């Protein structure tokens, strides 16, 4: 549900509500201990980003296309290395 407000008092209420929600969430949900394992699991479920996915990120940041393609290729290789460290069970 998105917070709707236009007056300062309503906005402040939305801010406080969010803070209290996040405090309760953190108390009830411990953070995963191995972020790389989470990333590998995402790739196995949702697919591995391709060169075009990463190149789109870099181009949006203003990187020249040829450099974006090179950097994207390095990211794809890093993903492959990450996946190799977390073989499917």
């Amino acid at each position, binding site marked *: *549900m*998105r*917070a*709707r*407000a*236009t*007056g*300062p008092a*309503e*906005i*402040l209420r*939305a*801010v406080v*509500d*969010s*803070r209290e*929600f*996040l405090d309760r*969430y*953190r108390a009830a*949900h*411990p*953070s*995963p201990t191995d*972020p790389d394992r*989470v*990333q590998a*699991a*995402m*790739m196995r*479920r*949702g*697919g*591995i*980003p*391709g060169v075009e*996915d*990463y190149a*789109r*990120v*870099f181009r*949006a*940041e*203003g990187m020249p296309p040829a450099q974006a393609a090179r950097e994207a290729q390095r*990211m794809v290789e*890093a*993903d492959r290395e990450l996946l190799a460290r977390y073989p499917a069970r």
Partner: protein
Amino acid sequence: MSHRVAGPLDVGGWVLDTGALLAYANDDTYLQSVVRSCRRRGRTLLVSTLSMREALQARPDSEQLAELLDDAGTLLAEPGQHEVAELAEPARRTGGDVTAAHVAWLAGRRGWPVLSDRPWQLTSADRSLLVEPV
């Protein structure tokens, strides 16, 4: 296609709106590429506490969001007392959506790109934003 591209950016990070967080929770490959490329290069993922709340309310059991929430590269931003007054006008322009107003305010202050499923709502708050649609 991006909305509003105004030359090379000095990008220290990306702002993730609620829709981007939900796409990340769904293992979207573009969101994966944004998150991992930022982490590997020391860029910041800036998230409004209002957006994070909305995403976690929709996906409370998401391991992806739980991990993102506490990662060192994620900066959670909560509007301070003095910023609340500044949000009133952008909130009015977004039709009273205070989350959209805060996301637009965060991205506009830093000049960072924002990933969102509602680019037109964000640019109604700040026309200078670079919004990548998800």
